């Protein structure tokens, strides 16, 4: 086995320092007493207290959470179906186009996706607002869910599904009782990913949302343009905290499920 050299360790340490230092600094300066974000003047939580009195920001946060919950849930259903279609049916008319529509949104510049979706909403006469925002978020996040679930389905042992079918289960029952429990951790991480992507999005939201449906990133963006303030640092810190917690829970849940699954399989073989 090739050794883990000093060069390897150094590149990892520098890489992670580069990735995390800016975020750590941002979090630290959210607790700064001074209004300046570059000069430390003592510890204070006053910017967090101030947030609680910023009604516009709280409203934006509420819109963001609702859009996130609805869009992540619908996107998870659609994305899981798309992943099933991609892995189970290798031949159907227009499969090339289908896989193109799954992969293209992953790399498509957001200004294009946002603009094109807005023009669609205008063309079909939908008023821009909460629901157009949600539709747009469902569309771009479902592709991420599809990719996450698809990678799990590829390593899925189809023989247990076939066994269920042979024993007389309908395809729907097989899916719900056999397939879904096995791929559940991937479906769940797909949901968490969709939720955080929706929570974070600025560009697509800005194009597809209308009056009365301002999201938190849109609010943050309009304040950032006016200058860097500890108050924005505080909002960002809270968002980072929520996301970090979500990821942590998702990974613990999926690791537990994985261990459980391995145990179940071993138990099944022992019988």
């Amino acid at each position, binding site marked *: 086995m090739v*050794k883990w050299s000093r060069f390897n360790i150094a590149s990892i340490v520098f890489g992670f320092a580069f990735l995390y230092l800016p975020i750590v600094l941002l979090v630290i300066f959210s607790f700064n007493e001074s209004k300046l974000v570059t000069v430390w003047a003592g510890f204070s939580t006053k910017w967090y207290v101030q947030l609680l009195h910023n009604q516009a920001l709280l409203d934006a946060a509420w819109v963001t959470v609702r859009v996130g919950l609805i869009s992540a849930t619908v996107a998870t259903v659609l994305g899981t179906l798309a992943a099933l279609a991609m892995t189970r049916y290798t031949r159907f008319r227009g499969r090339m186009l289908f896989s193109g529509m799954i992969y293209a949104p992953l790399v498509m510049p957001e*200004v294009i996706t946002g603009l094109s979706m807005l023009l669609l909403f205008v063309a079909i006469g939908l008023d821009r607002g909460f629901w157009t925002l949600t539709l747009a978020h469902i569309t771009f996040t479902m592709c991420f869910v599809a990719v996450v679930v698809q990678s799990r389905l590829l390593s899925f042992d189809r023989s247990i599904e076939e066994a269920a079918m042979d024993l007389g289960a309908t395809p*729907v029952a097989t899916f719900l009782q056999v397939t879904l429990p096995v791929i559940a951790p991937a479906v769940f991480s797909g949901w968490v990913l969709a939720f955080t992507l929706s929570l974070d999005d600025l560009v697509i939201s800005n194009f597809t949302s209308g009056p009365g449906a301002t999201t938190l990133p849109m609010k943050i963006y309009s304040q950032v343009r006016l200058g860097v303030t500890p108050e924005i640092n505080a909002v960002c810190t809270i968002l980072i905290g929520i996301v970090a917690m979500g990821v942590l829970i998702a990974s613990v849940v999926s690791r537990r499920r994985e261990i459980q699954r391995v145990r179940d399989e071993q138990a099944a073989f022992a019988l």
Partner: protein
Amino acid sequence: MSKFGSAIFNRLVIIIPYAWLTIFFLAPFFIVLRISLSETAIAMPPYLPVFNLVDGVSGIVDKLGELSVANYVFLAGDALYTNAYISSLKIAVISTIATLLIAYPIAYGMAKAPNMVRPTLLMLVILPFWTSFLIRVYAWIAILKPEGLLNQLLLTLGVIDEPLIILNTNWAIYIGIVYSYLPFMVLPIYSSLEKMDHSLTEAALDLGCTPIRAFWRVTFPLSMPGVIAGCMLVFIPAVGEFVIPDLLGGSETLMIGKTLWNEFNANRDWPVSAAVATILLLILVVPIMFFQHAQAKADGEGK
């Protein structure tokens, strides 16, 4: 009933997501194309002609004649747009190369890490990807400002005598892109290196290759699929990037994503922004198809 039910289930699994993506992802591009051929108007929606089903077939055919390529002629004639496209491509190429140079050693180090720490390292690379893009870009403003943290540090250490001007220059954009897209480059390279058969490198070393030669002749070529996927994942979105040039770049920085945004939000010129988007899409369609093909192939191998 069961046969019938299963046929319907199989159909729905394909049809529902297919229909969704066709309506909300594919169809809009045709609308963009159509509006890019329209004229700007002071109305809502702000373009002409507007197709209406009430016009009947003949009315719609009449209006088709009103479509024109005037917006494209305008784009081609205005150096602002051509320069913005060229400058976006240049910035995206330079940032992609820089990201590759920084990401490769990290991915390589991770792949060689002991099995015990690998999941943690992987988790640490993925985590920033989940935190807001906007927040991560915002974090750099306080660092790169003339009176910011980086300059304070360098001045204290005596490395420089006067503050470096980094914010609002192209340097800040390069830093922003490399930083934001680093995980997208590390992950595919790591996964191709991790799958690699280490005995191949050992064989090369046993046969007298120096470690550096073994790396360039064996390891690097085998990691090419990861390198290509990573470069595509960075390059394509970077060309159309908006947040990074807007927050970190200066007024003289031209990037097409920002131009499109301004055209749409400040000038309210929908037909011209639709034309800008159409050309950007045409530039990116080859790399996108290349990416999709490589990705589909990689997923196929998993079976």
